[in-house]
């Protein structure tokens, strides 16, 4: 699978939507990308929970998803995974040196 914000074009789209909600055609005008490509990128961003869309008349308007905690959740999930592995490495050291601070009793 593709990654959502690892792709520079998707990141650019994401940033544009941060500036203002936009339809596919607006994004295609502002970026060097075709409309079908923009649609494809939006689909990925939407699946990742980073953007949402609403139908406004004949236009489908995309914006960042303020309720979409997916980004924050995944960020923190990754943080805790990293942190716990770091913790495991530390706690399993045979002879923990306490270079600083007091020793515990």
């Amino acid at each position, binding site marked *: 699978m593709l990654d959502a*914000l690892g792709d520079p074009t998707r990141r650019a789209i994401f940033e544009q939507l941060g500036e203002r909600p936009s339809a596919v055609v607006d994004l295609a005008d502002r970026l060097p990308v075709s409309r079908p490509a923009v649609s494809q990128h939006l689909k990925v961003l939407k699946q990742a929970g980073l953007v949402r869309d609403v139908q406004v008349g004949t236009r489908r308007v995309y914006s960042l998803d303020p309720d979409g905690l997916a980004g*924050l959740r995944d960020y923190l999930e990754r943080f805790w995974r990293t942190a716990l592995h770091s913790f495991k490495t530390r*706690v399993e050291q045979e002879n923990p040196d*306490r270079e600083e601070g007091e020793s515990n009793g």
Partner: protein
Amino acid sequence: MADVQTAVTASIIVDAPIERAFAVFTEDIASWWPKEHHMLQGQESHMVLEPKQGGRIYEIGADGSDCKWSHVLVWEPPNRIVFTWELSPQWSLEPDLAKASEVEVRFTAEDAGRTRVDVEHHHLDRHGEGWEGLRDAIGSPGGWPLELGAFAQRVQAEKVS
């Protein structure tokens, strides 16, 4: 976890007795807290956890400046600790406690020498309004870009079933 997306969980089993696991996690937090997630930028800093209910968790820099980013809400050694997460999605101090989330960490002895550690970081919706600030962090030096790329990969690779 299908609909309730206001929490994240993480677990790990470590080869250490529960008392040691709890002690290292709390009093020795500086030894394992990921360096790239320190709040004070551009200087050496140290993470401190005051081991008591009502204690603070803070980072203190070489120049004496500090960043108190958490209150210890529950202190039950060696089984459980709950603390606030007073950080915005931009990883800066969130002074509004109404926008702070909470982290609960439970320690369970698997046997005499092994301990299971469960982290539940909940009430993430309280950060909701800050979420759009994510875009401001993109491209900022020392900010999120690397993390973003990585988390985005995980979003795709491990789309929760």
